[in-house]
């Protein structure tokens, strides 16, 4: 897929502290891109550069192949991690104002606002002030403000922090729907389960360096260890273990199951999964056989601690 956003060798320093060290990324059109990394890794710095809030010391960023320039702000929607709205301004006026700052006309903004307010069933909030709304309600407004101008590229920095599970789910569904409609989404988060669920592509930044990037599937393949979880009701467990030890690396393991069977994790080394199956079948009833797929959480922790 053609990248909608290309980050080329971006360097950003604050004084003598380096925030981004020669970062390059391609964000494919129509993908949900997860930008991962521990606190202080440089995620927000990169996001701010993409939003033209700050500027890189060197390197460039291309949106649709064009060097980033002020007129691109209308194609980008940004929901920062630290977010808020004018407390004493009415919801409707505020949303219209922010949309107009993005460069769309008042009429168009009104039309879009009506669509979103109907969709999220918050139409009667129009004349309320933000300070009269609950935190969760304000967050919904915040989301509407981010997507109101129908940007091609949406950037969410920790989008689910502060949302209760119900609202978080509503927002998640809306984000996926926007993706269906063709928007590209950049996600910055610590919540790995939402990364597993939503992201097609990820990049991991740690201490201002990019450690890995690519499609979620490719990265998982890269981190697969050819290890299988095996559950078997063996007649003679010890004999089976001794037999397997000769050909494979085995460890006791735990997974949820209904029987009290022998549970092993077996590393195949260079052998195939079928060979392992053939080897164990004579020893008893196989109840469980699955590849151990590394979770993003594991990959994240493994990569960060290795560096």
């Amino acid at each position, binding site marked *: 897929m053609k990248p909608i956003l290309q980050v080329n060798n971006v360097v950003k320093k604050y004084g003598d502290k380096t925030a981004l060290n020669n970062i390059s990324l391609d964000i494919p059109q129509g993908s949900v891109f997860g930008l991962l990394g521990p606190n202080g890794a440089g995620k927000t710095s990169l996001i701010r550069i993409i939003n033209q*809030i700050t500027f890189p010391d060197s390197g460039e960023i291309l949106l649709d192949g064009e060097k980033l320039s002020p007129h691109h702000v209308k194609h980008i929607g*940004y929901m920062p991690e630290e977010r*808020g*709205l004018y407390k004493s301004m009415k919801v409707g006026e505020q949303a219209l104002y922010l949309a107009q700052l993005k460069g769309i006309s008042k009429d168009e903004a009104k039309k879009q606002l009506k669509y979103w307010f109907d969709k999220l069933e918050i139409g009667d909030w129009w004349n309320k002030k933000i300070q009269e709304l609950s935190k969760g309600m304000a967050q919904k407004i915040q989301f509407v403000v981010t997507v109101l101008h129908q940007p091609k590229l949406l950037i969410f920095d920790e989008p689910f922090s502060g949302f209760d599970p119900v609202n978080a789910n509503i927002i998640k569904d809306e984000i996926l729907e926007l993706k269906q409609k063709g928007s590209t989404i950049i996600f910055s988060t610590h919540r790995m389960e939402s990364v597993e669920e939503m992201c097609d592509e990820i990049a991991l930044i740690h201490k201002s360096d990019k450690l890995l990037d690519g499609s979620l599937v490719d990265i998982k393949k890269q981190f697969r260890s050819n290890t299988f979880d095996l559950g078997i009701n063996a007649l003679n467990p010890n004999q089976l273990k001794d037999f397997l030890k000769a050909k494979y690396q085995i460890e006791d393991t735990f997974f949820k199951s209904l029987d009290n069977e022998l549970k092993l994790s077996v590393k195949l080394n260079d052998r195939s999964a079928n060979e392992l199956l053939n080897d164990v079948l004579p020893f008893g009833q196989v109840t469980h056989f699955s590849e151990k797929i590394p979770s993003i959480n594991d990959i994240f922790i493994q990569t960060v601690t290795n560096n």
Partner: protein
Amino acid sequence: MGVLSLIIKREFISKVRNKSFIVMTFVSPIIFVAVAALIGYLSSMKTEVKHIGIHDESGMFVNEFKNSESYKYHDVSKIDPKLLKDSVSQANYEGVLFIPKKDNLKDYEKAIEYVSEDSPSLGFIADTESKLSEKLLRKNLNNQGIDTVLLDKSQIDVTMHLTKASGEETVKGVNEIKIGVGAIFGYLIMMFIIIYGNMVMRSVIEEKTSRIIEIIISSIKPIQLMMGKIIGTTLAGILQFVIWAIVGVILLVVANLLLGLNTSSPTTEMISKAPEYNQLLSNVTIIFMEIKKLPLLSMAVYFLIYFIGGYFLYSSLYAAIGAAVDNETDTQQFMFPVIMPLMLGVYIGFFTVMNEPHGTVATIFSMIPFTSPIVMLMRIPFGVPFYEIALSIALLFATFIAIVWVAAKIYRVGILMYGKKPTWKELIKWLKY
């Protein structure tokens, strides 16, 4: 609609709709008029009459003291001084003047004593001393054989007529009018800068603490937000001043009608002193003529130019301060250096320009951009060469651009900095980001 005008509009509307703005706008003229009326009332009240005892052993001075509205003098020369001192402490008299008998008039220099519970006012002391000295002088002259009545008759009071080289006649007090007009303009600028500069600062802090700032500057440039904020707040301020002027005039007219404080119509007392009154009238006319003769149009234009330059200069500083801190209490350390040149400008204006409008100090401070809006406006009514004004304006606007640039840099970095109180050193470091 351009982005800048959108921001200006929002800032203007949010300021004007604010309850404290509405209250300030309509309540402060009422307070102002009420205070003015109160001061007028208090100063028109009769002061308490003070009783002064005079114990004059020489009998020479006691007749020199004539009762006035505020002082009544009593001859207590026959009473024992010791007893008198006691009665002072019992507050029968405000104070008692003790004059001993001396043969040599020179000996009176240090011999007269005034005893009182409370310290006497400076005016009373000066008045009493001059009465005593006058009497002694006359006595001395008489002793030398000089006729003091003749001396009084020969006394001639001279009042100079002041005429400019161009031939126009002026009155004494015209300088006061000029400084008055200049001072009003200068003072207005200072007040406006402090009040609305603070408003700009608070509005920046509000955006920072509500965390909307990051969303806004992902759409527009920080300098656009800063300028929009300053201009929008200015417009709200100008609206407030216009309303104050209108409400103030209306209230003064109403107050005049209600209290009957009609100052312009001649009273019977004035008519009884017809010649003096005519003199006064002609002076008033000349004063009005003088005000009319001031280059009012060009002064208004200069006021506007200096107002814009000075206000933008300072409010960008205020915006930068607002951006650098997290909350209003942290602003203190940065406020002093901003307020100080303003205060300095006003003091220089009042004390130096008044005495020597074209002196070195006044000239220098009317060039320095941080004080020039105030000092130069005070100098202009006295006639300042055009090249000086041009230089001062050029300096002001050059500095204004430089300061806006610096402030915008601090602003750009500061609005995204949270959590720590910045130091001056850090602010300078931000300029390099």
